[in-house]
């Protein structure tokens, strides 16, 4: 038994090392020497359900970016989208798929890899803050649900209630159609996102416009699909800020021409 534990532990260690290696290796290839900064487009969240199976994560990404910008009330125009940060965030959601999103200690341990990767690029800011969390994509209203791939009523195969078991064929036919779980609306997702930002204690700095750049990546976690699990998306946000904000060097005085 002890041996088994040891083997599994070493496997885990190796696995986490492998993830770091993947991250570092791809960072070398992806990140360009000079950072590109772009304006963030406005994408307001609607009250319609967000079908992530159809829409993927791109729209959600754009919405969250836009919402982040709208938070920055003091200097709304200052927050921009950084190509380096976007690449890094995207790389993070692809490379790390485990418990790093829930475990703050584990996440902090990864910050140096972000810093090293960030050093590959020359950008206008030099402070970065990385945040990660998961957001639920399907609403079960806090109730019991089950997964049944044979029913075929919903693409998600998730239904509310208790899964009927031990029924005969005729009983099965008499059963009413199961109620599939609802998707969260876009606004709900944004609310979840904002709640997470609040939890990370960066809203104050974001509101006062201290951050200059942002990069967001939303990746739907495929491991939560078609299982008796609520489908989630991994979210990594990287904020970049200028350390030397508002500082000006004096221009060398030039003598007036006679």
């Amino acid at each position: 038994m002890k041996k088994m534990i040891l083997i599994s532990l070493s496997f885990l260690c190796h696995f986490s090392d492998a993830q770091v290696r993947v991250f570092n290796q791809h960072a070398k290839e992806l990140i360009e020497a000079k950072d590109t900064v772009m304006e963030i487009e406005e994408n307001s969240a609607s009250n319609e359900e967000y079908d992530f199976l159809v829409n993927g994560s791109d729209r959600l990404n754009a919405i969250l970016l836009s919402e982040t910008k709208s938070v920055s009330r003091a200097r709304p125009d200052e927050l921009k989208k950084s190509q380096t940060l976007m690449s890094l965030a995207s790389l993070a959601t692809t490379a790390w798929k485990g418990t790093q999103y829930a475990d703050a200690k584990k996440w902090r341990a990864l910050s140096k890899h972000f810093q090293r990767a960030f050093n590959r690029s020359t950008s206008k800011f030099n402070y970065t803050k990385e945040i990660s969390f998961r957001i639920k994509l399907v609403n079960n209203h806090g109730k019991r649900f089950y997964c049944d791939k044979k029913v075929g009523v919903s693409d998600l195969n998730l239904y509310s209630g208790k899964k009927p078991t031990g029924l005969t064929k005729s009983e099965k036919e008499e059963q009413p159609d199961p109620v599939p779980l609802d998707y969260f609306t876009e606004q709900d997702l944004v609310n979840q996102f904002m709640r997470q930002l609040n939890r990370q204690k960066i809203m104050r700095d974001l509101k006062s416009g201290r951050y200059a750049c942002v990069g967001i990546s939303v990746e739907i976690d495929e491991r939560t699909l078609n299982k008796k699990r609520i489908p989630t998306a991994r979210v990594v946000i990287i904020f970049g800020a200028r350390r030397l904000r508002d500082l000006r060097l004096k221009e060398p005085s030039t003598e007036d021409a006679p």
Partner: protein
Amino acid sequence: MSKLILLLAVAFSSSSFSQVSCSHCTSIVDALENPAGVTHLDLHALGLGQLPKEINQFVNLKSLNLSENFIEEINFDTLQLSGLEVLDISKNPGFNTFALEGIETCSPNLKNINFSNTNCISVSPTLAKCKELKILNLSNNWIQFLPKQLGDLDKLITLNLGNNQLKLLPFLDDLWKLEELDISENEDLHLKEVGASLLLKESLKSLIVTPEEKLSKGLPNVFEVLAIEKLTIKNGSIDALNSRLSRNVTLKTIVLDNVNVLNPKRFTAWLNRMTNVSRIEFKNMVVPKLLDEIVSVNVMQFDYCMISDKDELRKVKPRITMIAHATDISQGNYVGNAKILDLAESNVVVTPDVVVMNDDMIDNKLVPIVKQREQVSIIQADTPCHVRTENSFFEIPSEAFLTQSGQIYEGEVKVVVKEYMDPIENALTSTPMVYRTNGRNELFSSSGMLDFRAYDDQGNELKPNPESTIQVQMNDLQPSQSPDFYTFNESTNNWESELPPVSSRLARRKSRVLDSLNKISAAEVTGFQQVPIFLNLKYKRSRRDPYILSFTVEKGRRTPIRKVPSFTRFLYSSNADQSWVARRNSWKIDTTLTDEMKNVLSKVKKDTRRVKRSWGDEPNSGNFVVPRVIKNLEMEPNIENDNYILSFVYQDTVRRFPVVPNFGGSIRRIQAKEKANFKSFLLAQKTAKKEQAVIERYEKTVLEKYAQVVRERRAQAIATFPDFETANREYLRFGLSSFGLVNCDYFFRNVPDNYIAFDTVGTDVNGRAINVPYDVRNVYLDDNVFVATSSDKVPIYKNRRAIIFFLISPVEIAIVKGWERLKNGFCQPTVERVSISESDSPAAIKRKILAAGG
């Protein structure tokens, strides 16, 4: 057809040969025949007052030798010698080394410059623009100050500053490729500071120093970590040298040149502790006693030494190889520790006394090959007059001649003067050059020789009048040397000592010294230096975060600008901007850390440790003289990239790192800290600027006044120096106390590197056999020496320009071009024939010999 092609080829080759026939020329006339083909032009000892105007025609010139002339200035702006690599202006007394403007554009490829024996007191900073310079010789001058700009000579390998009056060598820090350095005989030079400058220079191999009298052990502790292989201690007294030298793992050879060993017992004990040293050489000195107790070395060499107790040599360990040049190490049946019978099998190498000459040479009875030309002048004995020859000037007062009976002669006088100013001509005319004294046969190295005779109208020889002496002013061929004066006694065929020279022309020289001193900046004259604070850069290569750098100030943190009392020449600055860097102790590298960066940082760390270790125990070592591993440290905020650029100079290369202060916390806290940090940065810059303004004001006011006083004192000191005229003469000046041959020479005591024996039969370049005679003449151009030897004992010097020739018939000279070693140990010479005739002057034959490329 094939014959035609052959003929054409021969014609072509002969024509091309004629074009390059004078690539190595010794006269401007010969060189002008084909200026484009001249690559080496040797115009030494021609009495030139200025550079020939035709010099620009030699477009392919690589080497120009202007030594031993009277050139005072060269206008490099008007010259265009782009291929010139070697420039020798040595022994041009009074050459203006400040007028070098345009030298870098005139000859951008200069690799070797020789300014030795020019009596200069400094050199122009323009010299530093010759970026290709590898060898610089400034020895035997009056140099007290050298410009800092010499540190820009990045490719300099050999630097000779021996026998000057240097006090500071601020440029030495920046010469990272230096391999050989001679700083001997600079009395006021602080060896400790020199050691500090050489501390981290891995390329340095050979160092020549004179021990400091102030230091109790002659050499400072810092020498223990210098990466030198050969240490030469020259001209000084030593008791027991610093025992910490034994820790120097690279040191293999110690040379003692003219050193007085005060305590042989301590010296021997010290040497035995030097376990790394495998060779010790004694040169020109009395070898200390207790040689038999030396056990650590493998080779002991004696060059022109006196050994007080030869019995000791027999007790020296047999495994120690002994080599003796011009040193008698024989005692009874023993040579060193080997019996004479076993000499062939022993490990003792002995070469005989200086140079083995033939008997005719020793007796001064050599038969001349040609006669020297004479210059005849007719003068009136009763009126003062002047006689001028090519190299001499005779000031003849009235009543300067006596008849054989001792009466004053007052008629017409025929003055006959012969000059012997060239070693090849001396060899051809068989000039007597051996001084026999105390059982030794000393060979003259000529500074100048002439033969003055006077005859009355009847042809009778006249004598000099001691009451009214003829004054002679003769060109000095070797101004750096201090010759003695000799007259030749024809009855004994030997030389006799003569009167020393008289002095003149002090005022002119003094004014020139003052002119030169006025061109040197106040900081250089006074030795003023602004020393930055000692700052350590620490790089902790941890696994956790290898990006962290930290700085610490060793001493003097927040010390205001001040003078260091014990070293008045330094002005110790706190450098406020640097101290700001150190105050923000921990920084983080803000870029990807490459292997190159890691190596640099590790090296800086190691070097800093070495410096601290070697300077930690130095008594009274203020941190202002501690060598700076990193220099010119600067930190500049880079607002655009949101970081700071850290730059410093390490080993002559500027290194730049983008860094950020290693703060933690939220962005709000960091930005607030950065703001405060930036404020203090601006404040530090402001303070640093103020400090710089104080220094500049100090330089302009106090220092300039002080410099003026120093300049005047210095000029006065040089002018009133007792040996000034002797050491700085342009001419040899003396009174003729007797007529005949007069010689101004010193002794040539360079021991040959080897002897070879010529076979009796040689071959010319066409393969025809020639007979090699007994009498062979060897001319050493650099030393103005000729020596006649037997053909079976021909001395060979490495690294000396030599011409070997012999007479094969009354009308033909054979010049040795090379030789082939035969199985019987003899060498068969290959010669080039040169035809001569009775009508040829020695100068004409000399030209033929040089054209043949001896």
